[in-house]
């Protein structure tokens, strides 16, 4: 019964299901590279086992999948809500589940790359930056209207740079675009971006900068959520525009930057003015200058016309006419004033003159008296003692004088009137 003994031998050689699974488990467990490894993928078939509190799910990418389990003790420390479709990185050991004959990833830690976890991590960083005042609106600087030297901090190979160059060439080619090269993804990206920001800051001649990279997967953009990058971005000595990924991508750097641009091209458009609009502005200013000058010339001309049509030029005689009239009026007033002053005095003078005339010696003379003056002594003769015989005398009567000589001097008038 060869068949029987063969069977006995085969039985002796064979292993049980438990043995093979246990063996496989030992093999896997002894491989360090699959013990304590990080596996990246998307969550599928998520199942929370309500009684045990364990979590069962699959990690998959577009070609393959792996079963995963996370025990309750680890599951409680996952800081976000798991859901199907979430991109995660799972840390754990790969081993065999001997009872089910499946190998699986025994998850111990899950880092989210998708919405929930990203949002949470993002929020924590945002809070720390906000506490330090780095997100204050007052910190945001205005972009220069006409930049001259622009730092573009990005991968020199990337599409972002090509887009920015294209926009600046078209819109405003008068600037100098300085590429500050750095890695924008991968393990060294953070330190590379930090050094590039440093170099740009030290250069000291930039008017504005753009930190940018093109679109990519969420974890490719994660470097722009790095806190140290964000802090250094906030520290830049010139205004910074952040343009990472697409419109829908929003990073911590976007929050910190002076301006956030939805795309690299949009950043370029924000940073430089449009040449054609600047040309329009120049044209506009030129015509404003012309208009002002024409207005000024018109004003001068109309002022001249107004002056020329003045009565001064049409009736120059009117200038003297008014003066003449004024003069005549003044003369009249002067006359009146003088009359007023002179008239009363004239009257008074007449009275005084009448009185004066009443006591005038001439009046006495006309009644027959005469005045005798001794020519020798030149004195009026009032007494006989004032004359001696032979003196020449002058006698004044009412209508004139005549000369005479004293013949004799006596006490009493001796006939013949008074001399």
């Amino acid at each position, binding site marked *: 019964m060869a068949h029987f003994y063969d069977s006995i031998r085969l039985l002796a050689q064979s292993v049980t299901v438990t043995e093979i699974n246990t063996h496989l488990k030992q093999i896997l467990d002894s491989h360090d590279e699959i013990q304590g490894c990080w596996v990246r993928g998307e969550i599928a078939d998520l199942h929370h086992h309500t009684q045990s509190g364990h979590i069962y799910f699959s990690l998959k990418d577009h070609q393959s999948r792996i079963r995963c389990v996370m025990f309750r003790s680890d599951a409680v420390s996952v800081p976000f809500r798991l859901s199907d479709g979430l991109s995660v990185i799972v840390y754990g050991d790969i081993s065999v589940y001997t009872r089910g004959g499946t190998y699986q990833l025994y998850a111990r830690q899950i880092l989210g790359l998708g919405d929930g976890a990203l949002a949470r991590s993002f929020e924590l960083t945002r809070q720390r930056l906000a506490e330090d005042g780095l997100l204050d609106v007052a910190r945001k600087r205005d972009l220069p209207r006409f930049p001259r030297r622009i730092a573009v901090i990005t991968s020199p190979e990337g599409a*972002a740079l090509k887009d920015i160059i294209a926009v600046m060439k078209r819109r405003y*080619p008068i600037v100098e*675009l300085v590429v500050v090269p*750095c890695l924008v993804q991968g393990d*060294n990206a953070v*330190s590379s971006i930090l050094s590039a920001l440093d170099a740009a800051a030290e250069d000291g001649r930039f008017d504005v900068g753009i930190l940018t990279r093109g679109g990519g997967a969420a974890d490719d953009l994660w470097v722009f959520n790095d806190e140290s990058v964000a802090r250094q971005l906030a520290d830049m000595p010139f205004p910074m525009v952040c343009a990472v990924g697409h419109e829908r991508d929003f990073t911590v750097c976007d929050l910190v930057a002076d301006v956030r641009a939805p795309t690299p091209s949009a950043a370029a458009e924000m940073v430089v003015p449009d040449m054609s609009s600047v040309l329009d502005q120049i044209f506009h200013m030129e015509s*404003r*200058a012309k208009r002002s000058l024409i*207005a000024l*010339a018109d004003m001068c001309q109309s002022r001249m016309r107004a002056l020329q049509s003045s009565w001064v030029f049409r009736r120059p005689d009117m200038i003297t006419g008014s003066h003449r009239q004024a003069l005549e009026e003044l003369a009249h007033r002067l006359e009146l004033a003088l009359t007023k002053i002179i008239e009363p005095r004239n009257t008074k003078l007449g009275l005084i003159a009448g009185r004066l005339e009443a006591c005038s010696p001439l009046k006495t003379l006309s009644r027959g008296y005469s005045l005798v003056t001794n020519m020798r002594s030149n004195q009026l003769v009032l007494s006989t003692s004032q004359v001696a015989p032979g003196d020449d005398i002058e006698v004044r009567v009412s209508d004139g004088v005549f000369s005479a000589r004293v013949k004799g001097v006596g006490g009493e008038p001796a006939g013949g009137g008074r001399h």
Partner: protein
Amino acid sequence: MAVGTENLEKMSFEERLAKLERIVETLEEGKLGLAKSLELFEEAVALARSCRSELEDAELRITHLTDKAEGMDRPAVGEADDEAE
């Protein structure tokens, strides 16, 4: 004083544009005499001409700031080139 072309050369594009703007505003205020206004107007025309020709003749200058940036001996790895524009 009217600005000669040699002075225009020394001023940056932005300075010239700013000066043009200032002159236009001064002219619009209309407080200056005719002679001074004419002088400023000539200056404005010269500024506008110089700005315009600089813009029209300009070519984008692209340079690299190559010191210090670490790890640039190898090219940036596989940045996704799926730009939206």
